[in-house]
């Protein structure tokens, strides 16, 4: 039997094959969704986070320690709230969320200080007998260089904490119930999905958009996607993040505060030495105290007032009877 085909047969088969390819390609093109998030059904979108906070103890909600050694002051700040074992139980997993937004050295205080990360991780392991401590953030700049240059990678290693880099597969679409902006928005969810406790670690910074960047603004680093679109609604997004994340504890470092040219700064001349460390179960109270260090009132930072209206916390931190202590040496 001859395996030759006629020219007519060849052209017919070629035409059929071409039409098949065109049909498949065309159908794929019609069905292709450029926004992958739209393909996720509403049912599969994450609609909130668990409450990571611990039971309140009157008079042990906020502490303010004066001192220049961050390791000592953060240790004392937590101790005065009842110790790390009040917040973390044996066998629990803990996520530390510092601000690692920029590839800047710790000296210019655009990022959380590595000494605090190392000390809190140590406390979690040695005193609270935590099972595992993780550190994560989704920086503005290249994540690898941010973790390295901020020296937080080295601090995490020193504290035996594991760094979770913000890989794309760790983001999930998040929708905040009652939120206007956080709707099917990429969120660094996986590091929080099965975690027991969350500790936010921020610094006091001037911020060109929001007025100040402290513990509440720090959660912005859990957003993915083109999050700069939220800059025009900065007060709303910070409020919504505070609605979404109920942390176990927040640490606000005011040893050196960035008083101008924030949030990046760039020079030690943008800093002012305040020698203070704040630990708080109420993020709004911590930020209200921090605002005062920047010569701002809560009314100057609308997100503080909005969050207070939503009863997330209080701007009247004095009402919480914060514990003030000065470290010697």
């Amino acid at each position, binding site marked *: 039997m001859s395996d030759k085909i006629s020219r007519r047969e060849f052209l017919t088969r070629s035409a059929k094959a071409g039409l098949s390819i065109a049909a498949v390609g065309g159908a794929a093109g019609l069905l292709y969704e450029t926004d992958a998030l739209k393909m996720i059904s509403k049912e599969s979108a994450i609609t909130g986070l668990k409450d990571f906070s611990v039971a309140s103890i009157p008079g042990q909600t906020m502490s303010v320690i004066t001192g220049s050694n961050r390791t000592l002051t953060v240790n004392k700040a937590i101790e005065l709230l009842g110790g790390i074992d009040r917040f973390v139980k044996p066998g629990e997993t803990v996520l530390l969320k510092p601000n690692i937004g920029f590839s800047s050295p710790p000296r210019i205080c655009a990022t959380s200080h590595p000494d605090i990360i190392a000390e809190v991780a140590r406390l979690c392991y040695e005193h609270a007998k935590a099972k595992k401590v993780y550190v994560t953030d989704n920086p*503005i700049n290249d994540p690898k260089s941010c973790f390295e240059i901020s020296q937080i990678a080295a601090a995490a290693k020193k504290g035996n904490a594991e760094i979770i880099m913000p890989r794309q597969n760790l983001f999930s679409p998040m929708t905040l119930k009652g939120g206007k902006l956080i709707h099917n928005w990429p969120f660094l969810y996986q590091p929080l999905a099965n975690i027991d406790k969350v500790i936010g670690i921020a610094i006091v910074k001037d911020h*060109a*958009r929001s007025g100040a960047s402290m513990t509440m603004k720090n959660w912005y680093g859990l957003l993915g996607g083109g999050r700069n679109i939220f800059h025009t609604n900065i007060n709303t997004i910070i409020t919504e993040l505070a609605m979404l994340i109920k942390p176990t504890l927040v640490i606000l470092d005011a040893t050196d505060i960035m008083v101008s040219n924030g949030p990046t700064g760039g020079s030690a*001349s943008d800093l002012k030495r305040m020698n203070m460390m704040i630990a708080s179960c109420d993020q709004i109270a911590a930020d209200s105290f921090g605002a005062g260090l920047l010569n701002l009132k809560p009314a100057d930072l609308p997100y503080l007032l909005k969050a207070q209206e939503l009863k997330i916390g209080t701007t009247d931190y004095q009402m919480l009877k914060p514990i003030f202590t000065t470290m010697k040496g």
Partner: protein
Amino acid sequence: MLQADKKIMPTSPKQSVISFSILILLFCIAAAVGIKQQYYEKAIFEDIILKDSLFSDKFTSASNIENYSPTNLYEKIDGKADLYLNNGFISLQCRRFSDNSATDKWVEVFLYDMANGENAFAVYSMQKRPESTALDWAQFGYSTSDALYVAAGQYYIEVALSSDDPVLLATASAAIKNLIPSLSAGKMEMPFFNLFPTENLTTDSFKFISADAFGSDLKNIFTAEYNINGNSVTVYLSKDSTGDVFKNYYRFLIDNGGTELKYDAKLPDCKAVELFGTTDIIFRTGNYFAGVRGSAPINDLKLIADKLIESLSVKNE
């Protein structure tokens, strides 16, 4: 048998036409790809300014050049991007260089193309650190213990150092000094500076504010600080050929609760308004709108306002 199967079939003209058509199509695709590739973002590929050799051979580039445009500037400087975007930002090129003998010693250079000298001066002046040392080799430049800031032509340059290191600062200073002639043709002309009275003027206090000055719609104004009887006073000045700037700013002050003060004005278009403890004496003369503001006693403000009116009158003549 195999040999028999391999006999060559004659080609028809139609087959030749199809074959040539396919070849022409492939050629067109190749040409289209080639043309498309001509329109790449040149700054990404051309190491035009922040060259490997920017620093002496004791330093090497520790990173590739990073390029940012108005659409992604926030990826580098986050919330500070607005300052640049509101002032004509075109592009940012930045690169880190490290000391060959100690890689923990590095310098990061940020080169902002701001389109023109006024814009570059605006971002320079609005971020100026009060505790700094003027650079004697730059028209607009200063250093802090760990950074260097220069406005040259249409460029604004920031140099961040890894540490508070005088040797590193000197190295960075020398490199940027060598770079400046390739960025700027020479001294930038700032004619507005000459309109400000010199008496009681705080040295190097000039600023250019391109938008939202004093929380209002005032834009494109030059300001300078004065010290009179221990009080700090701000003097501001802009073009106002129609008088609208004067009228709108006066309206802004009154609409926001300002109280007009009795004022013995030398000019017909002159007002004094007090708002939240700050007094503005504003006026229009010739093609200029100008003002003096501060919480100093009104007689002190008036003193500077009179000097400013005098200075502008001379220039208007």
